[in-house]
């Protein structure tokens, strides 16, 4: 029997649904009501239902800001799960030609990005898969890959409707090829942290003072790898109010790295001693706070001594080479610029997003102001406005280097990488 509870706060988390629901994947479901009740605990007999269940489960996960079981989920896992889900869709959904598949994926993709707009890795993976499908289609059709590229203006003018592909041709081997390509993508995703880690020794020399902010697993792995051979100091700026920097500092110091925790307010004061600033598009550590999703990319902390560096992570790398990173990063970047300290961003490629930072309302994400001014300050709480933004925009002029799994790049090169990863028609899902 289908039991439907319409009280969102009363329903328990584990609600076993025994009946199928009549919605097909292509029809947009009001996610608020439906996705709250479904879990992946019940294996359904029908493959399609199984698929839709999984999609719904994923959407609810996204909305809640993390996997149902684990409280934290980084961008890497998000990317992996998205890709795995897309592979499942490609394998199990009913489609006869590339166009259908792309349509299905686009629809699902729109729902996924709507569920959690700030989690751009989901959208990025969808665009990657779409690009893969296009490429496989082109290869099956026999045309070389270059003709399918969109770069040259000359081509656009002379060929006219070259991009007017409707992808309606059916190829038998397309399914297998697509799945294989997605598998390759998954392998690439698995190896991103390792690839970035391996470049650590090229950028860190001995006796450096490195500043970083908040918590990023990429930067953590990066620094731990460098610490095997070199001795250096790390200054971690805790990222108030979430204080992710504390966890980063504890984990770094357990690996034997000399670490210091500073407050956000002291970033400029100690920056004069910093060599490099490493920022990572940190796993903004999806923190669940009641109904709000919190992502906190720790503070860039890292005292850089003269010759210091600032190494940071970020949540998203934008199309113009700018960053969307945890709040406090812009201050850190400005301080690094003032002291001419290089700012290095460790960002795997799946964080590169074709967005531009012009829409103010979609760029910023806010979480509960309880973090900033707790409810215990009740008598003034009603009379003040409290803001708790999660992200900061860092313009590309302040960034020195991006380190990604495919190597190091200057911020001015990011647009080129984007054209390799995504097709321009997919920029808008």
């Amino acid at each position, binding site marked *: 029997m289908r039991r439907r509870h319409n009280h969102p706060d009363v329903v328990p988390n584990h609600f076993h649904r025994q009946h199928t629901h009549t919605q097909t994947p292509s029809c947009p479901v009001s996610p608020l009501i439906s996705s709250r009740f479904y879990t992946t605990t019940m294996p359904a007999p029908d493959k399609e239902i199984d698929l839709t269940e999984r999609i719904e489960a994923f959407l609810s996960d996204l909305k809640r800001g993390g996997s149902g079981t684990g409280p934290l989920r980084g961008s890497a896992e998000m990317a992996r799960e998205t890709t795995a889900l897309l592979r499942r869709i490609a394998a199990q959904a009913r489609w006869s030609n590339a166009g259908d598949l792309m349509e299905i994926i686009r629809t699902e993709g729109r729902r996924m990005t709507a569920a959690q707009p700030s989690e751009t890795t989901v959208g990025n993976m969808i665009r990657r898969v779409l690009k893969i499908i296009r490429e496989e289609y082109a290869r099956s059709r026999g045309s070389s890959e270059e003709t399918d590229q969109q770069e040259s203006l000359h081509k656009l003018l002379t060929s006219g409707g070259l991009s007017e592909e409707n992808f309606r041709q059916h190829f038998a081997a397309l399914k297998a090829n697509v799945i294989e390509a997605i598998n390759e993508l998954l392998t690439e995703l698995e190896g991103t942290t390792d690839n970035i880690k391996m470049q650590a020794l090229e950028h860190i020399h001995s006796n450096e003072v490195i500043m970083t902010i908040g918590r990023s697993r990429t930067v953590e792995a990066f620094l731990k790898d460098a610490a095997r051979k070199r001795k250096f100091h790390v200054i971690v700026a*805790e*990222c*108030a*109010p*979430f*204080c992710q920097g*504390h*966890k980063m*500092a*504890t984990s770094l*110091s*357990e690996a*034997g*790295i*000399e*670490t*210091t*925790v*500073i*407050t*956000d*307010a*002291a*970033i*400029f*004061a*100690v920056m*004069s*001693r910093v060599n490099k600033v490493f920022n990572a598009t940190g796993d903004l550590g999806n923190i669940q706070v009641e109904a709000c999703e919190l992502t906190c990319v720790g*503070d860039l902390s890292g*005292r850089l001594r003269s010759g210091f560096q600032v190494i940071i992570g970020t949540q998203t790398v934008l199309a113009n080479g700018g960053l969307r990173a*945890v*709040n*406090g990063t*812009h*201050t850190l970047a*400005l*301080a690094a610029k*003032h002291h001419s300290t290089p700012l290095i961003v460790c960002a795997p490629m799946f964080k590169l997003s074709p967005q531009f930072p012009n829409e103010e309302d979609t760029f*910023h994400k806010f979480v509960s102001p309880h973090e*900033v*001014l707790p409810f215990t*300050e009740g008598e*003034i709480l009603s*009379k*003040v*406005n*409290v*803001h*708790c*933004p999660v992200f*900061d925009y860092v313009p590309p002029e302040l960034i020195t280097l991006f380190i990604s799994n495919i190597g190091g790049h200057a911020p001015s090169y990011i647009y080129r990488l984007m054209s390799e990863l995504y097709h321009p028609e997919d920029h808008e899902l």
Partner: protein
Amino acid sequence: MAESGVTDGLCNTDDIERSKTEGKELTKEEKQRLRKEKKQQKKNKEKNDEKTSHEGEKKKNKKKKEEQPAGSASQPPAQPSPKAVPAPAPPPPAAAAVPVPASEAPAPADKPAKSKADLKAERASKGKKGDVGQPAPTGKLKAPPSELQPVVKRLPEHVQVDNPEVVKKLAKKLERQQIPLRSDYGYKVSLFSHLHQYSRKAPLTQQLGIPSTVIHPAIVRLGLQYSQGIVAGSNARSVALLHAFQQVIRDYTTPPNEELSRDLVNKLKPYISFLNQCRPLSASMGNAIKYIKKEISNIPSQCKEEEAKIKLLNCIERYINEKIVLAAKAIAKYSIEKISDGDVILVYGCSSLVNHILCEAFEKKRKFRVIVVDSRPRLEGREALRRLVQKGISCTYVLISAVSYILPEVSKVFLGAHALLANGYVMSRVGTSQIALVAKAFNVPVLVCCETYKFCERVQTDSFVSNELDDPDDLIVTRKGKTQLEHWQKVPSLGLLNLVYDVTPPDFVDLVITDLGMIPCTSVPVVLRVKNVDQ
């Protein structure tokens, strides 16, 4: 001790009698004698006369110095014997040396010693701050250079923690003044090993006996309030200090054969050491203390005690009134010209002066709203928020990491200062320089409000050489039941840094509003010079 049998000359008996009448406490004369002895010892060492006996004497003297309150009777050698032993009872031993050299040696030794004593008195009367608390050993060692170069200042002790000699000297001085020494706490980050780092959980007063005979109870209370952070903020601390000193002066009685102008200054020295141990003195407090000392020293000797006390109390009252209260009014008057309707003003932390300005402007019916920026771990901005909201000003509250989000809305930034340094740098709460930096990047004008009594003659270019390290345990926070840094002391390579102050370069500051008017940051040394000429 071997030479103790020899009787002294006439000069010794005077000394004996005097030391007998003076009682157990160290008087100034005894201290002077100590100094003379030591200087004499040094000269003897150089002269290379009777080396072994000198060394023997010196050792005894050193021991004597350390056992000072016990009053042991170490015997000075022949030459310094005329400057008798401060210990009351035992006869000063005339050392075995021949009276002839004995009479010769004291003569030249006496003269420089006496002139040094005069110098000391002069210095005390000029009220130089550098003399706080180290009369005997360092006074002797430092006297020659200060005769030649009066502007050479001694480096303050609190920035030389990594120098073991300085630490030892401080310990000796505190022991002499009978003030407990506060011990450092926790692992200090290597860049700041030259500064003290105390824990709030171990206040200095735990080591004091009750009742404390050496330190006035008002001062003990004040020191505790400082170390626990109950009284915080440079104006508040200065005013509390001045009120405590008023109490001390009211309760003071001049001991017989002493002059109020000299004795009161000496009484204040251990109090200042104590307060310094509780929490390093701020620049404003330093200036206030200098002023008080100068006023005390300028009391004419024929003035009766009651009159003198009333005069001092009035001086202090006037100082508070002029330099703090009226200055705030003047600064508010200037600042209100800078606030226009529709302004969005950003303030950082809790500065009493800036709060005063905003409240005044609001009463003058200016329409503006305020954004209060706050930072961990002190979270002083909440106090400012409360005060402003009570007045009815509409406020927004963010943490310092969100400042680059909120700055596009801001039209002006008002900052308070802890001190203004002579090279134009603004020393203020940590985070101020960061706000000034981001404001500069967004082209928002930064105005610093500071009274002139906070101007100090120090120069500093970064936040490391002279700063204050607060309790590192303040950084620990419990979120969702998990405290990440709870056991930070156990991890050897982890350090927590809790800075209190930072310096803002003058290029970030557009205007400084003082009670003398609106000046650029670089005019601070001009103001200092004008002030010195006035005084």
